[in-house]
């Protein structure tokens, strides 16, 4: 497989509207999950990672102005604002166009504009905005992309599948560049659902920790601009070299008992990248901090031969951002690789999973040449993708 390079990126979360703002927060150990009271979101208060609405509006107005758009900010939904700002920030420094036939736009989202199903929001937008293809069309039209958007909606592995698909399509020459964006908003729909699963922690989540007791929900967006031309990539030339998915075929919401399916997705990704476990600098795993997910992941990591490899989860900083997670966490991991820095797995104190995985307890400078990003989701899906330096 021909390696595919990263040319630009962005992260939007409670911790900031740019990749650098977010990375600064991570390095300083600041977490973006706070106890929130909003009756529109949930009857009682809950730890949530919310994007600042005031700054969101400011940033969006600036983007509208930049592109000389006549449409009012109120014609765009919250999620659309996330996605549009994220793409803008990722492409604004790049000296090339994205409106040609060889550019693919890939969108990853689990629920799209799901807040429009609420009684109070229904009159604000045309009914068709609830469809993911209409959401994608709004973004496509805003930027004038030429090709029909590729939309991935595959639970929490959507982001990785979006990157993987762009990687495969660019590698084969079907396209030369891709703008891959993922996003999801916090909504009463999603919060109520996870609450019915009794899977929300009353405090900010603690991936892999012995005292972990559930996940924290978050929202945001992440973008990567990919290119098959190395000369177009950012200074250090970080590239995608392998990826794979698998299915547990065990239960629609509970993870595999053995972790072998996630394990072989990891192995397949490494095989495609021609790397052995010893070559992997760190694993940025899913780490939602539910008892069962983290346990399963530790088994998968062991089966994939990665027990000696530093592991972290970013969910202690941003919460679980669903369709944005794969994107946001991959961008942050790329920065880690670029800066040769292993970042602490927030919320971790002592190991609470059956396999002795090596969780990153403190930020550490280290020579690393690659990382593996993994995720798992409802429906038994698993995904793994490899990024390399140089």
């Amino acid at each position: 497989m021909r390696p595919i390079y990263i040319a630009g990126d962005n992260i939007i979360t409670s911790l900031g509207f740019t990749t650098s703002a977010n990375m600064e927060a991570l390095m300083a150990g600041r977490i973006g999950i706070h106890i929130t009271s909003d009756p529109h979101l949930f009857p009682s208060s809950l730890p949530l990672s919310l994007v600042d609405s005031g700054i969101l509006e400011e940033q969006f107005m600036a983007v509208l102005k930049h592109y000389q758009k006549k449409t009012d900010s109120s014609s765009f939904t919250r999620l659309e604002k996330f996605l549009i700002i994220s793409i803008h920030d990722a492409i604004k420094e790049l000296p090339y166009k994205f409106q040609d036939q060889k550019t693919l736009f890939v969108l990853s989202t689990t629920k799209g504009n799901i807040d429009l199903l609420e009684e109070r929001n229904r009159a604000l937008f045309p009914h068709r905005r609830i469809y993911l293809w209409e959401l994608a069309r709004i973004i496509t039209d805003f930027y004038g992309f030429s090709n029909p958007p590729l939309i991935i909606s595959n639970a929490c592995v959507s982001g990785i599948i979006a990157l993987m698909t762009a990687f495969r399509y660019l590698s084969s020459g079907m396209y030369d560049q891709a703008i891959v964006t993922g996003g999801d908003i916090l909504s009463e729909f999603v919060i109520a659902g996870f609450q019915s699963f009794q899977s929300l922690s009353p405090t900010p989540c603690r991936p892999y920790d012995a005292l972990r007791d559930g996940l924290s929900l978050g929202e945001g967006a992440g973008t990567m601009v990919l290119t098959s031309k190395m000369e177009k990539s950012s200074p250090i030339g970080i590239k995608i070299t392998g990826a794979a998915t698998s299915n547990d075929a065990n239960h629609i919401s509970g993870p595999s008992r053995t972790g072998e399916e996630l394990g072989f997705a990891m192995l397949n990704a490494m095989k495609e990248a021609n790397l052995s476990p010893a070559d992997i600098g760190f694993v940025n795993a899913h780490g939602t901090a539910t008892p069962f997910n983290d346990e399963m992941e530790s088994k998968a990591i062991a089966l994939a031969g990665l027990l000696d490899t530093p592991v972290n989860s970013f969910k202690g900083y941003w919460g679980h951002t669903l369709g944005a997670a794969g994107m946001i966490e991959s961008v942050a991991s790329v920065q880690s690789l670029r800066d040769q820095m292993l970042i602490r797995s927030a919320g971790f104190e002592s190991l609470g999973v059956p396999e002795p995985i090596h969780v990153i307890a403190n930020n550490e400078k280290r020579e690393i040449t690659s990382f593996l990003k993994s995720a798992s989701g409802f429906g038994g899906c698993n995904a793994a993708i490899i990024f390399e330096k140089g």
Partner: protein
Amino acid sequence: MEELIEKLKREVIEQLNLEDISPEDIEADSPLFGEGLGLDSIDALELIVLLEKKYGLKIEDPKDGKKIFHSIRTMAEYITEHQKA
């Protein structure tokens, strides 16, 4: 108690979408999980919803669920005990 047990059987069948099962098929003392009805983790969560919806009883710690939902009878006993309060 027997009346409550019969009522619970019907409610469990409805809440858990146990289409081809009738109340006569469920023994009051048979374990609900494991063998018998072969209920899974989502069913366990649904039973928590059932208790809240139909009987106004909130289970604070889902780990208590194992004891409470062992059988229809243990469910009935829990309801009878807590509804007095």
